[in-house]
């Protein structure tokens, strides 16, 4: 749960995506560790982390909807 810089060399023209919403990650990203599974996720900012938990909660209460 911290900000990180996206270190890219100037001639690297590829881009990275938020693991939660799919939007672009530019210059920096927010990371958090998934509570189940323990995977590290890269996302836009804290709001995407909250979104992640929220979607999980919805999924648990109404699976497959």
């Amino acid at each position, binding site marked *: 749960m911290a900000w990180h810089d996206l270190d890219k060399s100037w001639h690297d*023209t590829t881009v990275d995506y938020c693991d939660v919403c799919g*939007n672009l990650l530019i210059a920096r990203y927010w990371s958090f560790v998934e509570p189940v599974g323990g995977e590290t996720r890269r996302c836009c900012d804290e709001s995407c982390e909250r979104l992640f938990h929220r979607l999980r909660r919805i999924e648990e209460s109404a699976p497959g909807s």
Partner: protein
Amino acid sequence: MTGTPPPMAGIDRVGLTLLYKRVRNICDEMAFAMMRTAYSPIFSEGLDFSTLVLDRRGRLIATAGINPAMLGASLYAATWIIREVGPENFADGDVFVHNDPYRGGSHLPEHMMVAPIYHDGELAAFVGNIAHLAEIGGMAPGSFAATATDIFQEGLRIPPTKLFDRGEPVRDIWRIMLANHRTPDNSWGDLHAMLGSLRVGERRVGGLIAERGIEGLNEAFEQILDYAEAYMRSEIAGLPDGIYTGEDCMEDDGVSDRSYWIRSRIIIEGDELIFDYSRSDEQAIGPINAPYVVTLSASLNGLLYVLARDVPVNAGIVRPIKVVAPAGTITCVRLPGPCVGGQTEFQPRIMELVLGQILSQILPERAAAASGNTSLNFLFGGTDPRNGEYYAHYHFEGMGWGGRATSDGNSAQIVPHANCRNTPVEIFETKWPWVHEEYRLNDDTGGAGRNRGGLGVRRVMEVAGDVITVSALSERMKRSPWGLFGGRDGSRTALEVAPAGSETYETFQEAFGLVSPSKFANIRLRRGDRVRITSPSGGGYGDPLERDPAKVLADVELGFVSRASAESVYGVVIAGGSATGDSGQDGSGSGDGAAGDAAVDEAATAELRRVMRDGVA
């Protein structure tokens, strides 16, 4: 909570209204400058562009109401450019250009320009615009390569790049761009129209800064964003909480016969809303994928269509909204996926999914059945025999819109996620070597319903040059525009060709052995060949048996609906007159019951409708 949001402390509401109107006016002025000076008819006649005023972080403060399809790019692209370049690397007089769909662009033809505005050496704000250039290279003239399998075939991709450096043109960049476009003179003119529009914006925003100072202006900008956020929250709070789902598909991707499904769910909780597309199919091989901003545009546009019409469109409106479109799905394309059709075909599909299928569950009176829902892109290029010059054009077609709660769908309207105009036949034929045989409404095709779907159009034109290379990128050839609440489906798109001297039309697919009927590239047509473009009609709204018989009669009299359909679909029996109805494919366009002696046979109609409803004779 519904209605008015609570008063915001410490805000001068009147002052805010006044400032916002002024910023909007600046965008309008920028738009006028662009329209009057552009070269490509798609942005001078078609108005396929947007103008933007942004704060010093690149957040959208206001935009001119021209093309809603560019909303997503308007909201994000400038922010991304500024972050990637770094605010410290801008200087007074710089202009950046960018068309990268992986960096906030919608598709390659749409170029964005942004220019920083400085005041006493300090960065104060940005102005920007986005415009669709008609030709930017790639594998097919008109840069709509319907059979592209990666973005490198779609044209020249430009990450954020300095076009002007402290007021001086960066000539190498200009030369690279122009060398890669098939009609560089056109691009030169259009790029200047964009620059001219930025200059208008710079002057006027400069005036605002002089009046209010950098801090004062940015504080006010902040309040404008807060206001838009409060507005959206208030509107969303008025919708019932819940999870709503819908799905629709792209028929094929131009390179294979497979269809791709978009699965959407909308989660409404209090004053926040989530669009979740994570269950959609993986990205396609062909160019129907959407970049993230296109999916975002479509979602917001669908929502804005059914919510209040006068919400200020700026970066504040997305705060209560999240769009989940995981990278690698058709809703968020990854390198090197092609995506030129995402903007024109995928976007309207999602937008109508949101406003027609999903929101109709909670706001039936504000929803509409499906429109023809394709931009029907038809591209062509060649050498004009009249002057020996190379030309390329990006053509689109109007279609029928879906029926609505209180009225029939409009006929011959641009696809709802855009707001472009057609090119008049007289301008068309003066500029390009085609001769039109007809351009008319396509009778008896509107999806039946209590409120009927609007009619599509039919255009027949003959090649008047030696060779014209054509391409197409369209949809709605395999699946019809859907009706709503018992309304019938509308009719489909058709792209057909008749070789010189023949009266027999066949589809492009049959004639040239294509994979897709709706998406193809680089077909060479010769002098005398004729093309017939038929655009889809809209779906109907409500049960056709509930349609006012007087309206059915009027439709028959005007030839919009045949007498046969009046009976078989609407259950309306018309007596007397000579209303022949079936004007069909070669109809004269005028119904024939004009003498006023045709009338609805009330008794027979009531009986027929009863039978059709209950199934008992």
